[in-house]
């Protein structure tokens, strides 16, 4: 099983890079995953990652991308709740890639 390496500890992930043990997540691990995804975390990235973690905490699912965009639009405005802005931050998909960095499962309902 492949794993992320961090300060001498390992955190296992599946074949797509989603961590298996959700409790193993930390902001430090997020940076390691992001580096693996070739993303440099900015405040704007963290805003989306934290939003996803809050959504998961409340509903116990990682939202599909269209649901994520709609909810971000609702809470942060249309300047951020749109495809262009979110795909610029996470080129491989604001739900799929940001969920991976957020230590969540692959989004439910991403077909």
């Amino acid at each position, binding site marked *: 099983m492949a794993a992320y390496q961090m300060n001498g500890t390992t955190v296992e992930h599946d074949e797509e890079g989603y961590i298996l043990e959700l409790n193993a997540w930390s902001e430090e691990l997020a940076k390691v995953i992001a580096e693996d995804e070739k993303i440099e975390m900015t405040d704007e990235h963290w805003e989306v990652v934290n939003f996803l973690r809050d959504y998961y905490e*409340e*509903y*116990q*699912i990682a*939202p*599909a991308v*269209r*649901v994520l965009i*709609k*909810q971000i639009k609702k809470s942060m405005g249309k300047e951020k709740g749109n495809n262009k802005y979110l795909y610029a931050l996470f080129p491989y998909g604001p739900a799929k890639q940001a969920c991976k960095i957020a230590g969540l499962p692959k989004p*439910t*309902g991403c*077909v």
Partner: protein
Amino acid sequence: MTTQEELPGASGTKRFLYVNRRAPYGTIYALESLEVVLIGAAFDQDVSLAFFDDGVYQIVKGQDTKGIGMKNFSPTYRALGDYEVTKLYVEKEALEERGLSPDDLMDITYEDEDDDWAEKPSIRIVSRSEMTEIMAAQDVILSF
């Protein structure tokens, strides 16, 4: 081409009803049904959910699964509105037969886009005979 006219409904959408009749834990049916609903919601159909028999336990509030070592997925029903699934029909008799009332169910709501995003309840309590009519009006019924 005139095939457009043969499709059901003006926009070609079908009416899908997901029927939930089993208790939430002990078997995988309830969770599988919920996941299929969330995935299927991407296809822009007219989706409703029905809860009767032990299925009504799926949406009872205050679920605690610590003792059985399973994930409590009941909060996910409250995300259905975000996925534009806004009709959850619950059979009144099934509740009564189990000593439950509508107050024992979770607050599951949606925001009505056509009414300035007003928050509205998704749960609709219906009688057994009303449920029969709802089922008869569907194009597709998936039973879990």
